[in-house]
């Protein structure tokens, strides 16, 4: 394996209104096979992707939220959520379906700066 790069996937869209969240998750799972340093950032409406208790039977759409819990199995363990985005939406860490690291916007910005590759969804 050549040099390892720092990849960050930036998720800013809510889960079902657009296809962004699902597509991001698909790409993240593919990336897992390439042995890179992968982190996922959730900000703005992207934090809604991780909300517990999604029940999609009524909208006849696949509930892909359990897949976030499987990321650990692919050695993707760096999940970062922006504190200010959570607060604006009345959501707390306990409402999320996976363990995450909550960062302030300044910390999130700094982390983004450290990356070699940033992919936006």
């Amino acid at each position: 394996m050549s040099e390892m790069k720092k990849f960050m996937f930036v998720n800013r869209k809510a889960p079902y209104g657009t296809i962004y969240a699902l597509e991001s998750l698909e790409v993240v799972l593919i990336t897992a096979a390439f042995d890179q340093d992968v982190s996922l950032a959730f900000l703005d409406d992207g934090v809604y992707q991780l909300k517990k208790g999604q029940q999609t039977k009524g909208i006849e759409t696949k509930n892909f939220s359990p897949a976030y819990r499987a990321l650990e199995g692919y050695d993707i363990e760096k999940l970062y959520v922006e504190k200010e985005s959570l607060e604006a939406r009345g959501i707390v860490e306990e409402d999320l379906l996976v363990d995450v690291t909550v960062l302030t916007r300044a910390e999130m910005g700094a982390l983004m700066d450290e990356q070699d590759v940033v992919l936006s969804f």
Partner: protein
Amino acid sequence: MLHIVNKSPLSSNALDSCLRVAQSGEILLIEDAVYGATGGSAYEEKLREAMGRFKVYVLQPDLEARGLADRLMDGVSPVDYSGFVELAANNKSCQSWL
């Protein structure tokens, strides 16, 4: 008149535009607009204020899909798909704020 909004108020100005322009009537929040009807969010105050002028509804299956069925603000009425049809049929016109 029925106003239908489908975008999250925290990422689009669709609901803001609706509330700015429309004077009264009924508002139905569907798809990502259901996030606007959840307690504790930064939009809660604005929607509460609008509830003085409008009757506000939310599409329940969209709320459930997003894991927010237990977060609905007081005063917002959940409707199912047939309730959606009834609202559309009972109003003389509909405006979709896309």
